[in-house]
């Protein structure tokens, strides 16, 4: 089950990561060896017969709810958050045009 270079490029693209051309091959090899190890999980046979999409339910994952209210006073963190923006203008976050 070797991963092709094209697959690596596609995955990197999906993950929004630019990868140097020369790294694609070594990455494919490393992914192969890791996947080769973790695929041993496919030998695991659950005695559970329920379909897999109920995994969450069976793991007892529950939602924890809270009132929908402001956790802190408005403006408390504004200056600190603004300070970290790489690009800003007049107190707004500046991004490249999207459409």
């Amino acid at each position, binding site marked *: 089950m070797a991963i092709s270079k094209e697959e690596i490029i596609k995955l990197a693209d999906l993950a929004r990561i630019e990868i140097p051309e020369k790294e694609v091959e070594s990455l494919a090899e490393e992914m192969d060896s890791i*996947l080769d190890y973790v695929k041993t999980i496919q030998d695991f046979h659950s005695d559970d017969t329920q379909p897999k999409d109920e995994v969450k339910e069976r*793991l007892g994952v529950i939602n924890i709810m809270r009132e929908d209210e402001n956790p802190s006073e408005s403006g408390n963190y504004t200056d600190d958050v603004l300070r970290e*923006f790489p690009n800003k203008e007049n107190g707004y976050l500046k991004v490249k045009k999207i459409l």
Partner: protein
Amino acid sequence: MKNLTIKQARELLDKKEISTKELAEGCLENIEAKNKELNVFLEVYDDVLKNAEDAQKVIDAGSAKELTGIPLAIKDNILIKGKKASSASKILENYRAIYTATAVQKLLDQNAVFLGRTNMDEFAMGSSTENSAFGVTKNPLDPARVSGGSSGGSAASVAGNMALGALGSDTGGSVREPASFCGMVGLKPTYGSVSRYGLMAMGSSLDVIGPITKTVSDSEILFNAIKGKDKMDSTSIEIERLKDSKIEKLKIGVPYHILDGDGIDTDTKKNIEESVKKLKDLGYEIQDISLPNIDKSLAVYYIVMPAEVSSNLARFDGIKYGLSVEGQNLLEVYKKSRGEGFGKEARRRIILGTYILSAGYYDSYYGKAMQARKKIGEEFKDAFLKVDAILTPTTPFPAWKIGEKKTPLENYLADVFTVAANIVGCPAISLPFGTTQIDGKDLPLGIQLMASHGQESTIFEIGKKLLGE
């Protein structure tokens, strides 16, 4: 400073035999002397002495708490408002936290003194700090070797007498393994017992903040200070100490079958025998137990963790904070910022997680892993009906030489004994026990004790007895 514990320092401070300033200065002197060579701290804070003096006022006013004036180190992925926190990554190299982690706040409330932030594997991904964007942390006991990881700087800071205790984070062994490599005590608390608010997320269903200390008593002091339910982390829980059980009647299970696996050092196996002997001498009953699917833990971990990593690290995109690299359009900004900002291991795990979660592979990896995770959890639950604690080595081998492990998979195998506790969420502690001689040097070994959810008290009691505290 040498071998000074938090408990001893507390007594000295309370008796006014030393001042908080002298204590902090002692740490700073050791940092000054060793940090250049060992690369333990990425930054030493400029307000250490001021905070130490504030703590002294609290002591002088007679309001000292257990950690007032105690100098601590903090892993670089835990936030203190206004201070840099980079997760040892280029993508956050100049990031300043805009809020304080709950665990840290609890320590600040006691006027503990934070010395600086410690080196780690980038975003806590690794077992040696060799994945730090800012260079490896050398082991204070043998600078040719790694200090372990990912909380390698935290472990080395305590082992090198540069701090009396440190906070780390443990997703698959990142507190216990470096503690073991540096001859320290490392605790991975019960999942949720310590708030994750202000800890940079790696694998959210696995992550927990834990202390690295010289003794089990110190570990208990720090754990008691940072634990507790927190409204800022909906997965956090309150754990209550169950009634004191009769300690001498405690049963310890040893899953001997896992020691038959490949790649486990002979000395590591022998060391378990030694620890079993000692525990028997102390009056504990030892039982051979079976955890039939524990050998799947590492595979489960290296599926679930990268899946969560690929989601959690999506937030670093060069837009809101951190490194932002200019590009022709928005997509290029994302790709360049992430490509240049993340190191090799972070990129590898994000891409691995993306693969594992993609349509067509989801069921055969993530789905299977979640089934196995549940099964392993049930097996642990059954085991804890029969025994009070489970004993294993912390790692299959001691600290390796810097650069010795070449492939990612070789590194991952170091986690074989530690990941299970993260997968099931139970508490686990690594205790320094025994040594192994390599190249004429004695290297520390660690043993791991796990207990049922919320039963930190059990492993503290056994640990204290075993280490003669």
